[in-house]
Structures are given as C-alpha cells and as structure tokens.
C-alpha cells in the first residue's frame, strides 16, 4: 500500500472509531427519546405499541413529576448561587492572604472532590439526624452547596494563577478601597473561572442522585423521582420530560456556542 493510501486508511479508521464511541454515548439517549413517543399504557412500558405524542401532553398533569423537577431547579439555582459566591470569595482569599489554617483549608477542599458520594451522603444524613435537623429542601440545598463549593474554588483559582496582581495595586494606588477594587477590577477578570465553576456546580446539582437520596426526607428531586419510577418501570412521561430537558440543554449549548446569546445581550 502507498503511503498516502495508508494515511487515508488511518483517518478512515479513526473516523469510524470516533463514530462508534459517539453511538455508545448516545444510545441510551435515543432509547429515552423513542420511548417518550411510545403509545403503550401498561407497565413496565417496554413493548412498542405505536407512535404518539400524547405523553408530552399528559406530562403537564403529572403534578408529582413536575414538582420534583421544580425542586431540582430550585435546589440547583440556590445552591449554585450560594456556592459560586462563597467559592469565589474563598478562592480570592486563599490566593491573596496569609493566615493560620490556610493549608488546612486547602487540604479540606479536596475531600468533597475525591470522597465517594455515598460516604458523603451517609455522613450528612447521620449528622442531620443526630442534630435533629428535619430533612427536606433545606438539607438538600446545604448538601449541594457543600459538594459543589470546592469545584468553584478550584476553577476560580485556576483563573487567578495567570492574572496580574499589579492591576489591583494600581486600583488601590488610585484611591479605590478593597471592596471597590474587588468588584470593579478583580471580579471582571475572574469571570471565566466563575462562570465555569458555576456551570459545573449547576451540572453536579441537577444530576445528583446519591447524596440527595440520603438527605431528601420527603422532598423528591427529579432524579429521585426517576429512581422511584424505575422500580415499576419508567413511564413514557418521565422519558418525555427527560427529552424536553435534553432539548433545552442542546438549545442552550447552541445559543452559547454560536454567540447568539452574546449578540442578544449586546443589543440590549
């Protein structure tokens, strides 16, 4: 075989392999999408009984499912906002100041990252039970903040390491105080790290199964509702909601990737 022919074969093989991996990644997703349009009405909703879109209509009367999704969104939004604020402050403080216990805090931040989620979940459950804190929305939000905050800290810190400190000093020399300098100089420069950390925190929160499973009390999040429904067979309206969420995220990606969003913001 010629050299060019060999190179062509290699790229061909490479492309084939990449496609195979993508098929693997999207196969269960296609099962979800197809089953959301399955006309079957009997448990466990597995055999194909024809095409229908009725589940997308029925979805809106399944209040339990909708409220679980609402809970997931509330928890994700609140915990992301809180952990982003706390994490950003901490990243700046840990970078900027020397104080006692700094190394300890740096070390402790790695625990939520590496510890198996189940251990984290049962430890929170045990402590909430011990302190008689009723489990529900509040404990879910606390738990989500605690596992996402280190990811915000690390993302913001990665931004800080290649950042020029003299700009801040210039700001202070020109008479701005620390608070003003933080909001007008430091904050804008850290924006990529902050948004990256926030996005990660949000993603971790909406998909969390294990930790939420232990600290939820009676407040069901969307993943916990899915877990419940798996026992009797996942009904097509759950698939329909998942499909809608997937479409929503794809739309979000397209908007951010193509900069449509940025243009829209700029116009306003």
């Amino acid at each position: 075989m010629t050299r060019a022919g060999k190179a062509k074969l290699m790229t061909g093989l490479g492309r084939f392999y990449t496609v195979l991996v993508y098929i693997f990644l999207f196969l269960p997703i296609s099962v979800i999408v197809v089953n959301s349009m399955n006309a079957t009405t009997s448990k466990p909703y597995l055999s194909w009984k024809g095409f229908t879109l009725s589940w997308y209509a029925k979805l809106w009367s399944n209040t339990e499912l909708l409220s679980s999704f609402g809970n997931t969104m509330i928890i994700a939004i609140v915990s992301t906002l809180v952990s982003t604020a706390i994490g950003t402050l901490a990243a700046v403080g840990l970078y900027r100041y020397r104080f006692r216990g700094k190394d300890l805090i740096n070390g402790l931040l790695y625990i939520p990252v590496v510890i198996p989620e189940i251990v984290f979940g049962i430890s929170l459950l045990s402590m909430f039970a011990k302190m008689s804190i009723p489990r529900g929305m509040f404990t879910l939000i606390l738990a989500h903040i605690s596992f996402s905050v280190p990811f915000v800290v690390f993302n913001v810190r990665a931004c800080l390491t290649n950042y020029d400190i003299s700009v801040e000093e210039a700001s202070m020399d020109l008479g701005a105080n620390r608070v003003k300098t933080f909001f007008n100089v430091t904050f804008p420069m850290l924006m990529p790290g902050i948004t990256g950390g926030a996005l990660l925190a949000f993603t971790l929160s909406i998909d969390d199964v294990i930790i939420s499973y232990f600290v939820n009390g009676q407040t069901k999040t969307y993943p916990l509702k899915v877990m419940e429904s798996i026992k009797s067979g996942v009904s097509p309206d759950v698939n329909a909601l998942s499909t809608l969420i997937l479409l929503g995220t794809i739309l979000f990606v397209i908007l951010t990737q193509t900069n449509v969003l940025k243009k829209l913001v700029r116009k306003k």
Partner: protein
Amino acid sequence: MKKSKHEWKSNGLPALVTVGPVAVILVFLVVLPLMYVAVMSFCSIDSYYNVVYKFTLRNYAQLADPDYIHIYLQSILIALLTTVICVLVAYPFAYLIARTKSRNKNLLYMLVIIPFWTNSLIRIYGWRTFLGTNGWLNNALIKLHMISEPLDMLFNRGTTVLGMVYCLIPFMVLPLYSSFEKLDVNLLEASADLGATKLKTLKEIIIPLTADGIFSGCIMIFIPCLGYFFVSDILGGGNADVIGNLIERQFQSGNNWPLGSALSIILIIITLLLVKAYQKIGGSMESLAL
C-alpha cells in the same frame, strides 16, 4: 509557609470575610459529619436499631464476613475493569477529537458532554431497555434471525461494568482532551525527524506527556465505581453488588448505621490510599477538580 509575591499577610478581617464562609461549610458539612461516622463505627445498636454510644469492635469484626469479602473483591474487580476499559476507549478517542483539523471541533467536544446533562439514572435505565430480554437488541437479533430465543444479557458483572464505564468515561475523556490539546506538535515532528518509529514516539513522548490526564482520570473513575450502588442495582440486579450497595442497605432497609459506618470507613481508607499513591507518582490534586 513560603511567601509569594501575591500574598498579603493578614490574620484579620479580609481573610475572615473571604475564607470564613467556606471554612464554616467545610467544618460543619464535611469534617464533623465524617468524624461522626468514624465515631458511629465503634457504636452499638439497641433492639430498636437506635445507635447507642457503647464502645464495640463488633462492627469491624463483622466486616470480615466471607459474604462481605466476596463483595469487596467483586467491587474492586468491577472498578478495575471499568478503569482499564475507560483508559483504552477514551485514549484514542480523546486524541482523535482533540487533534482533529475539522471545523466542528467544538461541536465534537460538546457532543461528549451533552449526554451527561440528562439524568444518569434514566440513561442507565436506557441501557436496561436496550439490553433486556424484550429489549431493542434482542428484538433486532430475532428479526434478523440471528437468534431464536432472546439472550439473557442483563443483570451480571458485565452489564454493571458497562454501566459504570458509561457513567464515568467523561472523567477520562475530558482531562485527556486537554492534555492532548496542550501537546506540542513540534515534539512529535522532532521525534519523527530523529528517526523514532510511531510506536516509539507514542511510548516515549505522547504517553508521558499525557500521563497526568490518565492518572487523574483513573482516580476519578476507580473511586466512584466502588460506591455507585444505583448502577449495580439497575444493571446488575443483585448479582454484581459493590461496596456502595452494602452501605446503602445498612442505612436504609438494614437500619444498622454503625455497621454501615464501619463499611464506609473501608471506602475512606481505600480512597486515602489511592490519593496518596496518586500524589506519589506526581499527580496534582488541583487537576482532579477541573
């Protein structure tokens, strides 16, 4: 402490305001709960399954139960297989999408992440629907007359490993992707110019320069595998339990929290050992969280 240029000495208000909140979270929601689990692992239970603070080593003695040991070994086997498969699948894949000259490079990257924005439970259930006796694959094979009876593919260690690989493979693809992106093309060309074969370039240059990504991926895959009880629940059907299943059972139906705590201590020890080994071979802790 080493003094660097960007650090201002402060024991006062600014440090407290910025780092205080995170310190409170770490102490009350991470350190104290874990310490409480450690304490509980030495406690007894009364006949109503309440935790009693009476020192005992019985929970730890119970950990040596042959049924449990079987599950620890099975769990480690599943985690090991998952990690190895993830490296083998993700390495060429990450290389191909990170070094593609295609205009759609960003899209290819996003296509790796998008599936993981759909709830992981329902995706794992999707595999069950696909592989079940009445599932898509069996139906297709029967229609194609390749088999006459549906194959019994579900509920074993193999399907559990499949589910684990599926859930955790982004933790290998994403760090490798950024390692490959940083890889300097000049080095590869220099290696070829100096007469190295492709295999030698791979062994001497590409793999050492991407080792960081491999190691951090391995840590972020192996450890969760030991705890992901829902994957083995849905795809293993009780035939491929991991340590996570044992712990979950003690905190739910079994209602023996001290025993569950002792089981959790095993997981904590395994985690610490692996992280120590990771640091020893030069892995950076920071890269685990990015």
